[in-house]
């Protein structure tokens, strides 16, 4: 009996995956050498960059030719190819189960995670998945090789939660399984009153190269509401009485932009890659354009 395909997998999805190649900007130190380049500068044959010499640097890396021309000491930096563990942290809270059909945020997030996981496995990277809600609600220990693909996708398929979002708590719970430096991709809407800062700082503390993927539904970006409404929170059931007018809609969009800029700024100051995607975006567009722009795919 052949295993049933996850709901997010179709032929189109598969064709796109084959054209993707994951690039991790920082290479991580692993037990097994992998094919993926790390943007962490180290010892290899592929030149990456120059930088000024600082006391204590390895003098073997000084570019003496440049010194002869410029009379200044520069270090030659090389890209170091290493195997990485890719941690996919997927928001499985109630707010992710939102959006119309194909624009469902949860579905979109699972597809993105599945695609990244697929690429990582093909690059002989290890892939671990954590399902986050008000705590860590599911965790797939690192798997390697294409033979683990179905197992990976089955786990991602089951990462559908219905609880509150508490990123800090759930990431801390997940941190017990992250034993060394690596790549962590956090996919969430980040619409959590408890905040995201602590969670991201904790991932950096774990020496993770963090990429934040914020997924928002179209009706969160451009709400089509009007009149006197009692808004019910999908996650908490809390209500909020509003009279939706053009003025309030403008205030909402201002707050949304402010929130995204705040999150983006937070990531920028910490060297975290940040992208914000609408769940209505076609997957290939998201995977090629958005992930390429963020340096996640080539």
């Amino acid at each position, binding site marked *: 009996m052949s295993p049933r395909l996850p709901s997010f997998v179709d032929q189109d999805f598969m064709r796109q995956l084959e054209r993707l190649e994951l690039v991790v900007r920082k290479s991580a130190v692993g037990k097994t050498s992998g094919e993926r380049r790390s943007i962490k500068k180290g010892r290899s044959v592929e030149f990456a960059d120059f930088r000024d010499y600082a006391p204590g640097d390895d003098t073997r890396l000084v570019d003496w030719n440049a010194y002869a021309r410029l009379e200044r000491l520069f270090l030659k930096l090389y890209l170091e190819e290493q195997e990485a563990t890719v941690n996919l942290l997927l928001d499985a809270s109630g707010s992710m189960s939102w959006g119309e059909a194909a624009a469902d945020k949860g579905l979109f997030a699972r597809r993105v995670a599945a695609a990244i996981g697929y690429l990582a496995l093909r690059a002989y990277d290890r892939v671990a998945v954590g399902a986050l809600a008000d705590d860590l609600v599911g965790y797939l220990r690192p798997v390697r090789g294409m033979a683990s693909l179905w197992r990976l996708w089955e786990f991602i398929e089951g990462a559908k939660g219905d609880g509150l979002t508490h990123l800090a708590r759930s990431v801390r719970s997940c941190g017990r399984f992250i034993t060394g430096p690596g790549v962590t991709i956090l996919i969430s809407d980040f619409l959590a009153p408890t905040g995201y800062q602590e969670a991201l700082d904790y991932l950096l503390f774990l020496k993770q190269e963090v990429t934040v993927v914020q997924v928002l539904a179209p009706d969160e970006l451009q709400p089509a509401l009007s009149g006197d409404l009692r808004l019910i929170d999908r996650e908490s059931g809390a209500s*909020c009485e509003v009279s939706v007018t053009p003025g309030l809609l403008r205030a909402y969009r201002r707050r949304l932009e402010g929130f995204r800029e705040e999150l983006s700024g937070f990531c920028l100051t910490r060297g975290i890659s940040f992208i914000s995607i609408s769940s209505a975006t076609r997957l290939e567009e998201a995977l090629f354009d958005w992930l390429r722009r963020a340096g996640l795919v080539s």
Partner: protein
Amino acid sequence: MELLTPAYLSFALTAPLIVLLYFLKLRRREVTVSSTFLWQRAQDEYQANAPWRRLKTSLLLYLQVAVALLLALALAGPYWRATAALEHSLVLVLDCSLSMRTQEGNQTRFDQAIDLARRAVQAMGRQDEATIIAMGEEPVVLVAHERDQGRLLAALDNLQPGRGRANLDEALKLARVVSEGRPHPALYLISDGRLPAPDPDILYPGEIRFLPVGQARDNLAVADLSVRSVGGNLAVLARIVNFGAAQRRVEAELHTDGILHSVKAVDIPAGQAYAAIWPSVPEAMAFSVRLRSSDALREDDQAWAVIASGETRRVLLVTRGNAFLERLLALLPGLDVYRVQPDSYTGAAGYDLAIYDRFLPEGDPGVNLLAFRPPAGWLVLPGTARPGHGPVRAGHERMDLTAYVDLSDVHVGETVDLSNAGWGKAFLVDDGGSVAVAGEAGLQRRVVFGFDLHHSDLPLRTAFPLLMYNVIDWLLPPPVGASGPVLPGAAVPLSVSPSAQRLTIVSPSGRRFTYETPLPRVFAQTDELGVYSVVQEAGGQQSRGWLVVNPPVAESDLTPVSSLSMGRTEIGAAGAQRGNQDLWPLLAALALLILAGEWWVYCRGS
């Protein structure tokens, strides 16, 4: 902008009521969202000035409040006064005739007229003054040159319609008098237009505006009622008129002395009259015919009649011999004539009429008298006789005495000068002056011919019997009461014996009017319709007469008119305010538009 009825602005209180209800009854639709996280923040930012911010969020609320305010303002009757700076003197003439009692919906035409008058008063500027004239049979000035709107409105509140006709001529004369020398006089005539054509010579010194009231209404009326003795039987004839535009079937009741005698069902085509006859009815004093109908004007559905008196009247003829007179008096019905020679004359007490032929007693006989060629004395001052000049013709006074009389080819040979008979008016004249006079002195009626019948060709003409019939009919009125039909509200000349000491009149509703000597010659309390009983007491003897007040037929045609002819000018219907521009239609239209917009917003919002 000014307001006709500022009190209606109180309806603007509905606006805060709507706001209150909005707060209390705001129904919110429940909508599930992925997270209220951002909404809560946006709401906090947007409602910085809560709760007033909350008001700004509801366009529907704004529109509803706007509609409430506009309607309240429209109810208050706003208008622009085009000539507010001018001082005006208004004369409001209100039609108080019977037709104004016509019921139209919940109001009578008179109620509508009062409403129009109230609006006109409320539209007055501070410098304006107004006079109110109630136009009935005898127009009355209720208030004159009044600037206090409270007093004017109070006068209107107390006004009631009458049951007679409206005397437009007298009303115009009154209006002309009160407008004399006033600034910018203007007359507002508020009526249904069922008015007699006014005298074209009565000119009003200002603008006249006709404010019509009423709509066309069907009506049935008993236009005439009479009782006659035919072959020893009493017959009642009623003329019933259908003033409507459709054939009507109606039942007419005949009452004798207040008791229902019979009912007759008749079909009357539109615009036509029907003569209903009861050929043999029992003896009674008063008769009435009443229609069983429910038309807009109930007052004209009944008419009354009394049977003419059959009493024989005693006449004393004092003459040395006058074949013309004696033969004529013998022919006139109802007269019991006693002839005496002047030498045998001892007085006229006990007679209803004394006729003196070429004779005059030394003192007033105390009864009505007719004299031919009297010698000079207390009746006619000494004067010279003169020959007749030209043919005799009717004078301009007492035309009723010469009614239907053909005076052509009548001459007199000699006559005394009657110009000094100050108590009388000439009803026969020739080129030389008065030939015959008639008049009243106290309760006594007198007719004097200045010529001897033997010195005139009058007895040879056909005019003679008719003229004498008219004269004696006037000299012998009913013993008491009034002769002929009486219109409601009209002042009625009373026939009272000169020797009567007490007079009692009882109206149809039982109101009693008692008079002692000197007895009135005129009775004006005729507002009620029906039969009035009139009783006089003279020398311990009582005699009873009747006074019948029936609704005027001219008031029964209820078709209103849209314009009036005033002399050579046709006056069309006008608005209630002079020089004012009503704004309420504009406001009402705007409110309707906003209401439609509110509905559109509501549909779009849901």
